[in-house]
């Protein structure tokens, strides 16, 4: 897969992408949004899959949940992966449902052996059902649990060691979480081994003031901020280029804005913007 940046696929951009086919490394979807049976989401996704590699990014598996995974949700995932054969498949280190209630948010887990066991069991189950490796993404966090006995980077690395999965490194999440906890993003990143990182996410966040104190909220509703661009340049120079996604999920702007952010990511990583175009199909790196 080319290292040129990709963008999140939004219905508002279906037509523009299909008409103009701008140079992009890949398109990423939230897998849950394509769990309807038919209609325009699938028609456009199938047409765009002719021109772009796809990345399937789940937000509802609840890999960090204490209870069992939702089997019908796994089965729908499997159907979609079989149908579209995405290049990348990922989910979050978080929980989002409990006892049949779906909460639709990526909720934090304590970093303990008990959590690690539940997470790893679920990663393995997802990998078994899909018949392929997945990537797991570091969450954005607004709180920590007092009894966590491992730091997040070590926790993630241990999960990859136990399950063979890879990492989707979300640099905006690293920045948001470390700022919210008064920690240092550079020290966090230094503890992530290069070879585990197979995709990078970039997004914007907002800064809210609560009781006179700043807290950063990962709302994917604005351009990537300068400190996160700096983390990206530092990361690429340390580990090399990786497929990089511009995420923008709230107040989605015109496609040109997303293409501009993707171009900026290419420049930051010094990827020639058209290196991935090979006629009508994008070349996959060996």
């Amino acid at each position, binding site marked *: 897969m080319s290292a040129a940046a990709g963008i999140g696929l939004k219905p508002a951009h279906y037509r523009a992408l299909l008409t103009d086919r701008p140079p992009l490394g890949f398109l990423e979807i939230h897998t849950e949004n394509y769990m309807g049976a038919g209609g325009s989401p699938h028609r456009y996704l199938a047409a765009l899959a002719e021109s772009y590699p796809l990345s399937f990014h789940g937000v509802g598996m609840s890999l960090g949940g204490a209870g069992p995974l939702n089997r019908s949700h796994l089965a729908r995932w499997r159907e979609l992966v079989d149908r579209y054969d995405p290049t990348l498949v990922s989910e979050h280190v978080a929980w989002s449902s409990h006892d049949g*209630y*779906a909460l639709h948010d990526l909720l934090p887990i*304590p970093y*303990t052996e008990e959590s690690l066991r539940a997470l790893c069991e679920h990663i393995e189950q997802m990998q078994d059902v899909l018949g392929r490796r997945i990537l797991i993404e570091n969450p954005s966090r*607004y709180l*920590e649990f*007092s009894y966590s006995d491992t730091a997040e980077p070590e926790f993630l690395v241990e999960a990859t060691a136990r399950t063979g999965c890879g990492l989707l490194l979300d640099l905006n999440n690293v920045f948001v979480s470390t700022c919210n906890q008064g920690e240092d993003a550079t020290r966090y990143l230094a503890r992530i081994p290069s070879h585990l990182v197979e995709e990078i996410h970039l997004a914007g966040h907002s800064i809210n003031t609560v009781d006179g104190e700043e807290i950063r909220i990962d709302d994917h509703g604005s351009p990537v901020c300068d400190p996160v661009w700096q983390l990206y340049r530092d990361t690429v120079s340390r580990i090399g280029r990786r497929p990089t996604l511009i995420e923008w999920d709230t107040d989605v702007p015109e496609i040109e804005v997303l293409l501009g952010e993707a171009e900026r990511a290419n420049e930051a990583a010094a990827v020639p913007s058209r290196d991935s175009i090979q006629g009508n199909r994008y070349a996959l790196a060996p």
Partner: protein
Amino acid sequence: MRSLPDLQRSFTEFLLSPPGTRVDPVLSVEVRGQRVPVEKRLAIYKNNVYAQLIGALRDSYPAVHRLVGHDFFRFAAMEYIRAHPSRSPTLLEYGASFPEFLGGFEAASSVPYLPDVARLEQLYLESYHAPEAAPLPKAECAVLLSDGSAQLRLHTSARLMTSSFPVSRIWEVNVRPAVIDGRIQIPGGAEYLLIVRPHTTVEVRRISSSTHAALAALERGCSVAEALAAGTDIDPGIDLPMHLLSLADGDTFCSCENQ
């Protein structure tokens, strides 16, 4: 320290509790807050949960949102979410019972057509996501219509609706991006509707009561003869086969093998 299931149970109870509910003291002891207090940190997650679900309802019911305005919509959505928490990891199906909820929602009773507008938007969504099926060509439809014992299947995306209000016209003016100033005149009373997505776009078509009766009979699995009888019962003068054929021109039917 509590077990992971216990922690997630009390976290879930907090997230689904009414706004302003106090945080379980044990939960707050186990959460570490530095500068920003624990309650405020937990509230961010709770806001996210409600914002996601309100956003999903707003996306699914744009005409209802426009009709009642954002503040009232938000109020109605919060009440609905409290009564019907999400049970599916995908938001596509969330809010299917919102029209029924609005029907019994006292605060919205001054807008009597609101539940029907919501019902139309729900059927629109069902049609939008319905399975694909090749439409039945008009010529094949004509053959089936001339055989009383034949079965004629509605397209997999077809949905039927009746309303005592001009619901499709109300819906149209509220999903159009153009700003409408002042009062608008909406003609007509009751409506009979066919919502169908034979290709990429969902179409909302106004049909006659007799055509509606015939299509409803076909939907129930009746034969062509029974469906035509159901339609002509309502309007003996109508040339129903001609009306159904013109619907076939608009790709309203599919072959039985699709079912």
